[in-house]
């Protein structure tokens, strides 16, 4: 009876997946549980340990391996670290600075713009007309064809395309309506991320080539910001939607302006969501390889490119140096995760509504 009672009150899924408190278990069960947890921890941490000791090995130890314990199995050396931090000091530092500047700026941009878009989508009901959108797309294609193929002056093309768009939107869009909703907009935004990046990398390369921005921070920052925007919108939409609308309506009736409501009520309540999203987007930009490979050649190279470059030396793969670079590369992500971890806690909305 007592065994079935919680199942009924909590639901099957929660009973299955909610971990029971370890403290309440019998000693035997406790040993098994802790044993399994320890085994899993070791399994997860081993690659990082391997990375650390590989960075302390020389070519001989790596190639004749496997050696597991420094000072016992092999004599550790700081040669790889010396190569990385002293001999190739300039390259490492440049890539490191580039990575930090690019991921911080692009993350800030996409979180700022994306969360505003997500808030609007979660709170305002939009009814865009599909016909008007199609007219806009047609006008844009016409614009490109005019400039690209027929070589018409871009100012002239742009002006006439705008005029044609407004005329058609007014003449047709006002009469024929195929209304879309917020769900459609959200899906369209997410669908941009479903598209594999490799499909657009060449057009993006050519675009930045045309405006002479290749191998600059700006090109990579803009690309990352745009690529990560859908993820931010998607995640933050969920967070904003989970904030009870009553709270905002109540604030409005209490006399708060929209900005005030956002600052005083919505923002403090979405800290957890913002922290999680920032962390995720930051890691995505930090690790990104494909766009960085196309858009940078020397000055704007990021860490992943540097790591990959270790692969291409005439001496074969430099596992020891590569390990050292990867260790250096992991550090900021770990620090950021630790810093943001305290915001990513559950139960922040408890007590807002009902009991």
């Amino acid at each position, binding site marked *: 009876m007592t065994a079935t009672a919680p199942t009924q009150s909590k639901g099957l899924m929660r009973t299955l997946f909610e971990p029971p408190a370890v403290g309440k278990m019998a000693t035997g069960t406790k040993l098994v549980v802790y044993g399994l947890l320890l085994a899993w921890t070791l399994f997860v941490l081993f690659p990082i340990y391997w990375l650390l000791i590989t960075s302390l090995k020389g070519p001989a130890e790596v190639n004749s391996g496997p050696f597991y314990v420094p000072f016992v199995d092999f004599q550790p050396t700081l040669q790889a670290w010396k190569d990385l931090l002293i001999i190739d000091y300039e390259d490492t530092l440049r890539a490191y600075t580039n990575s930090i500047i690019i991921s911080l700026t692009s993350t800030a941009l996409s979180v700022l713009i994306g969360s505003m878009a997500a808030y609007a989508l979660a709170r305002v009901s939009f009814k865009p007309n599909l016909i008007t959108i199609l007219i806009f797309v047609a006008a844009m294609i016409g614009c490109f064809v005019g400039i690209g193929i027929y070589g018409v002056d871009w100012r002239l093309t742009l002006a006439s395309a705008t005029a044609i768009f407004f005329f058609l939107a007014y003449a047709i869009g006002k009469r024929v309506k195929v209304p879309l909703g917020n769900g459609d907009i959200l899906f369209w935004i997410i669908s941009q991320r479903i598209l594999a990046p490799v499909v657009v990398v060449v057009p993006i390369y050519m675009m930045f080539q045309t405006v002479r921005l290749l191998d600059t921070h700006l090109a990579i920052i803009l690309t990352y910001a745009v690529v990560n925007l859908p993820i931010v919108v998607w995640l933050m939409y969920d967070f904003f939607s989970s904030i*009870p609308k009553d709270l905002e*309506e109540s604030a409005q*009736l209490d006399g708060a302006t929209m900005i005030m409501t956002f600052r005083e009520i919505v923002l403090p309540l979405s800290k957890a969501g913002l922290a999680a999203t920032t962390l995720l987007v930051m890691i995505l930009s930090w690790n990104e390889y494909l766009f960085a490979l196309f858009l940078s050649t020397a000055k704007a190279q990021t860490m992943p490119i540097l790591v990959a470059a270790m692969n291409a030396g005439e001496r074969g793969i430099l596992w020891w140096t590569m390990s050292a670079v990867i260790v250096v590369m992991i550090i900021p992500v770990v620090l950021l995760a630790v810093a943001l971890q305290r915001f990513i806690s559950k139960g922040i909305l408890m*007590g807002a509504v*009902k009991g």
Partner: protein
Amino acid sequence: MSASAQTATREATSQTKSLNTAKRLSMRNLNKYYGEFHAVIDLSIDIEPGEFLVLLGPSGCGKSTALRMIAGLEDISTGTIELGETDVTTVLPKYRDIAMVFQSYALYPHKTVAENIGFPLKVAKVPKAELDQAVLDAANQVQLGELLGRYPRQLSGGQRQRVALARAIVRRPACFLMDEPLSNLDAKLRGFMRAELKHMQRELGVTTVYVTHDQIEAMTLAHRVAIMKEGVLQQLDTPKEVYNNPANLFVAGFMGSPPMNFVNGRIEGGTFTCHQGRAPVAGYGDHVNVEFGFRPEDTVICSEDEAHLSGVVYSSEMTGNETIVTCTIGHSTVVVKADKDYEIDMNEVVHIKADLEKVCLFDGGSGERLRG
């Protein structure tokens, strides 16, 4: 001047102030459409300054929509709302000088009780000292004085409800709106908060619109009750009038617990007749489809020769202070409130007599009240 005297003066001034700021609220021909759906139909109500008006009806009758239109949270399709002398139909919620208590309480979870209560004043940029004093006054009024430092998640349901009330009264608004504020409390606490709410509203004298589906709340709290069904106002009157003189079948069936009994039949020559009996209804013309309505407490169980109607007992329940006898009369189920010592077995034949002074007759088709 001593501190207590200062508080007394402050209380007195705020009292006068609140009495002066109580405003008339007028809804004129309000309509609300959601696409094709007509949620509120031509609603017109004038609410006097300081009046407690209850909007009553089953769920989906448009009462909450009407309240949200007054608050400005819902666009008004057609019609106007006036608060005092001003037309607020298109005024933003924040400029309406209205405070609302939500069904969910809508407390800010990241703010303490004091910050929650003080939020409307903080927004209005009230000086710190004055704000603190007002928060304390409001908190004391709802017996929350000791909990000011807590967070909503550390409070019980009843305490959260009080915080929501304190946040509404702290600003001394022109009008209170309450959307089923007691529905999340357990029965005992609800009864207690009801009394407290009534006392507070009468003391503050603020015009109040209160939405509920609970007719007991409506009966006990309201100066006047507005009963709605499918977006249409059915009757607007004092609780007593609505109870004793329902305008139609819906109102009669909605008010009262247990509700009014109905037996279908016809009127012929001043007598109501059905298969299970007859009753004299002097002054009513002939009518073929009539609902004969009588309240359980206006009905007695009697001997066969005095009876208006006869049926069999379906069940008999002793509640402590009375016995509720449910009988089957033809196709209708009729409830009679009998003396607490009355005993009768299931399936026994029972004869009942209604108090003819208090009987209400309705047209069986339209549900409209028939007047003699």
